[in-house]
């Protein structure tokens, strides 16, 4: 009894773990949708997002009238939208290209109004239960972690975190270390995971693996719980190291809570990606308040030799470009530092 037109719909990347055959009917009460719930909607007006990332990772141009299955969820993107994962019967917004639905609370001045949709209902199963991402979370692994966990945190959106994370994965893999690429917070996007895989990650995943559509306004313990699951999966995949990207900037609420809370204890050493030399310095001060002293600086600033020199001179930190992170020799050195920090063993690293 398939009574809904989901078979013709475009299933967004956020729904990639969902068994589509479970959707046999629609519940028209879209206002009941909560973050993580699936929603079937029709494109009413093309706005900022002109394409949708599909479950396969491919991009699909959007046309007015397209049917879309996406997840309800909050969005935090200082360069784009802030949005809330609530669905009004009269219409909702596409908050992220990976398939996140809600309504826009604010948007960056340079960004067009969002793509607008008409919600049709919540896909439900034969028992009438609304489909939600947490139902499709990967089964919990044994509580283990790779021997070395390196975090990548940044000054803000587009500071170069994913580039730094992917480069470090590349360097570690070339150094002979089986490595995972994990995204612990933010909004799910195929591009991040694809960047990890392209760099050679043996396992690439984000919080969606644990049933979350995004992590904005998700309680800190739940985010740490999801990270533990990802680390467990990475260890089960035989990864000796994991590179964990923390989304957005240091002042983002979930990032700040993660760094100040037990989540930070999962990470053995940090790379801080900054957009420029001043944000590098400011970020180091913010991190110092939580007791974190990054092993190295990286990010967008390293595209400018002048900015690199400025940051290095002002902070005394090791500033590593994308190419240096991807070099197996310094990557192995970072790994050694993480191991020394974890084991509390004497390090020969100069102060």
């Amino acid at each position, binding site marked *: 009894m398939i009574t809904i037109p989901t078979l013709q719909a475009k299933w967004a990347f956020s729904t990639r773990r969902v068994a589509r055959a479970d959707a046999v009917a629609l519940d028209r009460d879209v206002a009941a949708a909560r973050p993580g719930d699936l929603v079937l909607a029709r494109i009413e007006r093309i706005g900022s997002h002109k394409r949708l990332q599909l479950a396969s990772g491919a991009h699909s141009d959007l046309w007015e009238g397209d049917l879309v299955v996406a997840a309800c969820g909050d969005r935090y993107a200082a360069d784009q939208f802030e949005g809330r994962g609530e669905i009004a019967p009269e219409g909702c917004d596409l908050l992220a290209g990976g398939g996140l639905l809600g309504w826009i609370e604010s948007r960056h001045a340079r960004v067009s109004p969002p793509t607008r949709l008409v919600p049709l209902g919540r896909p439900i199963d034969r028992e009438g239960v609304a489909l939600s991402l947490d139902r499709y979370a990967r089964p919990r692994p044994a509580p283990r972690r790779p021997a070395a966990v390196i975090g990548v945190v940044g000054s803000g959106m587009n500071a170069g975190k994913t580039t730094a994370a992917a480069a470090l994965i590349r360097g570690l893999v*070339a150094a*002979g270390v089986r490595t995972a690429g994990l995204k612990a917070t933010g909004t799910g996007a195929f591009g991040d995971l694809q960047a990890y895989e392209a760099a050679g990650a043996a396992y690439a995943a984000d919080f969606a693996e644990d049933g979350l559509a995004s992590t904005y306004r998700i309680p800190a313990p739940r985010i740490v719980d999801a990270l533990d699951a990802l680390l467990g999966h990475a260890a089960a995949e035989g990864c000796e190291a994991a590179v964990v990207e923390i989304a957005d900037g240091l002042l983002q609420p979930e990032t700040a809570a993660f760094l100040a809370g037990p989540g930070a204890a999962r990470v053995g050493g940090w790379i801080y990606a900054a957009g420029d030399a001043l944000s590098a310095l400011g970020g180091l001060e913010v991190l110092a308040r939580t007791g974190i002293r990054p092993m190295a600086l990286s990010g967008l600033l390293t595209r400018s030799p002048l900015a690199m020199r400025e940051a290095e001179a002002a902070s005394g930190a*090791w500033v590593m470009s994308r190419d240096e992170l991807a070099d197996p020799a310094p990557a*192995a050195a970072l790994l050694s*530092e993480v191991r020394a920090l974890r084991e509390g063993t004497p390090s*020969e690293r100069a102060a």
Partner: protein
Amino acid sequence: MPRDLAVTEDPAAGFDLVLRPGRGRRQPPVWIASPRRPATGARPLAVIHGISRDAGGIAARLAPRAAAQGRVLIAPLFTAEDFPRYQRAACGRRSDRALLTLLDWLAAEGSIAPGAVDLAGYSGGAQFAHRFTWMHPNRVARLTVAAAGWWTFPEAAPFPRGFGPADAAPAEAARWLRANLRAFLDREIAVAVGRLDDAPDRTTRSSPEIDARQGPDRLTRARRWTLAMRAAALRLALPRRPTLTVLPGCGHDFHACADAGLDRLILPDAPCAAARPEASERRTPA
């Protein structure tokens, strides 16, 4: 792509020896000795030549013993044109990266098993091998270094004498070594040198700083480096200690050293056995 040059086709040899052409500065040519009866799970052995660059001679000398153990042996050739200072590993042309590229390529095409290799080097090759392993500790399981002209010590002297800051490119190399000291020492490291390699010759690098710290000749330098690394291992509370073997009756000659027992150090009878803490110096292995 140029074809391999087959060198040994003797049915009784137990191995096939070929010279595989390189790809410029990205990947050096390499001698590959493949056993006709490969042993499952046996680690490949990479051997690095000295300044005479006789990679083929080294490969031919060690290939029978490697084949008897079912192990693939490779001997890359760092040409003078492409890698004039390959001994430093972190040289401008990055001979370390060239070896990594070669190992990955050989593993991808199935010529060697993926994962860490055993690494050995003689003379300039020992210089390269200990610096390479120090920079890439995850890529080397067991290290044998013989008759290096000079060494990198675990102290603040400028790289490559130590892991202190240096003008040598890349500027960060010293920092990599400093961070990796523990990982480098946490493996079986066998040092060897000929008993008669006890006087400087025309290829022995000499400077007031090197002579004062490391000594005038390779025998003294091997002893001092082994002692320094054993002290570092002790300081780091590591269970393994590098061992030094002095090979009787031979000077600075790879083949004489091999005959005197270096071949058994490089390819011990139990190739994957864990190292035993031993005295800092011993004579030729049994």
